C-alpha cells in the first residue's frame, strides 16, 4: 500500500510537469499543476494510511 501511495505521488509529479509542457495559457496550466498536486495529496494519504495500518498490527 505504501508503495502504491508513493507511485501515485510520482504520477502527480508527472501530471504537474506535463502541464507546463502542454499548456502555454496561465489558467489551464495552473489548474493542471494543482490537479497534479491533488493527486500527490491522495498518494500521501494512501502512504500514511498504510503506515497507520502497519502500526495497528504491530502495537504491543
Amino acid at each position, binding site marked *: 500500500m*505504501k508503495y502504491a501511495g*508513493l*507511485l501515485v*505521488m*510520482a*504520477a*502527480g*509529479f*508527472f501530471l*504537474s*510537469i506535463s502541464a*507546463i*509542457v502542454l499548456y502555454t495559457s*496561465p489558467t489551464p*496550466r*495552473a489548474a493542471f*499543476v*494543482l490537479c*497534479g*498536486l491533488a493527486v*500527490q495529496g491522495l*498518494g*500521501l494519504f494512501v*502512504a*500514511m494510511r498504510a*503506515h*497507520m495500518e502497519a*502500526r*495497528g498490527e*504491530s*502495537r*504491543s
Partner: protein
Amino acid sequence: MNLQAALPLTDSAFALTLALLLLAPLAIAGVALINTGLGRSRSAAQALLGNLAMVAVAAIVFAVVGAAITGNLPGTPGAAAGHSFYAAGKPWSWLGAGPFLLGGLGSVPALSQLAVLFELLAVAMVVIIPWGSGADRLRLSAGVSISAVLAAVIFPLLAHWVWAGGWLSQLGVNFSLGAGFLDGGGAGTAHVLGGISALAVVWIAGSRRGKFPKEGLATAMPGHNAVYVAFGCLLALVGWLAWNVAGAVIWLHAPLAALPVTAVNTLLSASGALAATFTVTRVRFGKPDASLCANGWLAGLVASSACAGLVTSAESIFIGLAAGIITPLLVELLELAVSIDDPSGAITVHAVGGLWGLLAAGVFAPQAGQLVAQLIGIATLLGLVLPGVYLIFKVLDRFVPFRVDPDGERIGMDLHELGGGAYPEFVIHRDDSYR
C-alpha cells in the same frame, strides 16, 4: 538562480557574505541542540555525537562526490557543461558535472566559491534533520550511512536543479514562469529534503518501544532538556539570519541595500510563528507548551528561508503566524491520528514549514507565473524526491539496519552504542516509568 548570469561580487559584498557564512553553522548547532534536548536523557550523548558524525561524513562525501554532481564550479579542469535532455523543444538540465574533490575551487570566481561553501553547510543541515526524528532508536552506523547517501547523490541532484542552472531554476527562461523556482535560503533544497528524509526514516525505523500501546492513547515521551531546546532556538536565530542574508546575495543576487530587510523578515517570521504557537498551545492545553513553542519558532525560521528576501515585512509576519498555527496542530495530528513517532517534530517543522514558505514565496511574488514555478518545485519534492528517498533508504536498511535491537533501546542508546551515559551522576528513567 544562475551564477553565470550574476554580476561579479564587489570585495565588500564578498567579505560580508563570507562572514555571514561563517556564522551560519550556528543554525546547525541550534538544530543539533534541539534534536538532543527533545530526545531522552539516556540517548543524549549518542544524539549529539551522531549530529557531529553525520555533519563530518556529509562534508567529506559532498566534497569528494556531491559537489561534482551539483556542478557549481564552472570553468575548472574536469568540469563539463552538465547533462541535459530535450523535451518540448527545451533543455532540461538534470545532472551537473564538475571536478571531484573540489578540484580548482580556489581558481573559480568568488561567487562560485561562496556557493560551494553555502552548499556544504546546507548538506550538513539536511543530514541532521532526520537524525532528530530517529532519536532513541536509530543506530549511529545507520545515521552516517543516511548522511553519506544524502550528501553523495540526493542533495547534489536537488541542488543542481535549484541552484546550479538545473531545470527547476530555468522554468522562468524556458516556460515563462516568473524567475524560475526560487529558494534563496534553502527551504526546499535543505529543509524539505531533510524533513521528507525524516518521514522516510520514521516509516522505516518505526516508533519507539512503548510509544503506541495496544490500548489507549499514544504515550507522552517529553524531551529531556527544555533548556537545550530553548537555547538551540536562540542559536538557530543567529545562524538563520546569516544563512538567509547570505542566500539572498548568492542565489537571489540581492543588492547590499536589500539585505537588512531580509534579516528583518527572518526575525519577524520566527516571531510571528512563536506568538501563534504560544497562543494555540495556551488555548489548547491551558498553558503554553515549551517544546511545541520551540517547534513553532523553528518552523517560522524554516518558512522564512524560502521567502525572507522576496516578501514585505507584513507578509513575513503573516507567513510566520500561519506556520505557528499549523505546527502544533500538525505535530499532534501526526502523533495521535497517524501514529508517526517524530521526537523532534522535524517532519512538521522542516518539511511542512519549508513547503509553506515555498508556497508563500509564490503567492506573494510580484512576477506572473512565479506561483506555478513554486508549485512545480513543491511537486518535485513530494512526487520525485520523497519516493526516491524512501526507496533508497529502504534498500540501505537492508545493508545497514536502521533500528537498534530491543535490548539497546531498553538500556538507552548511550550505554548501548557508546558504553557510557551523558549524565553519569543522574538517575535515568526506566522505560516503564513512562507507563
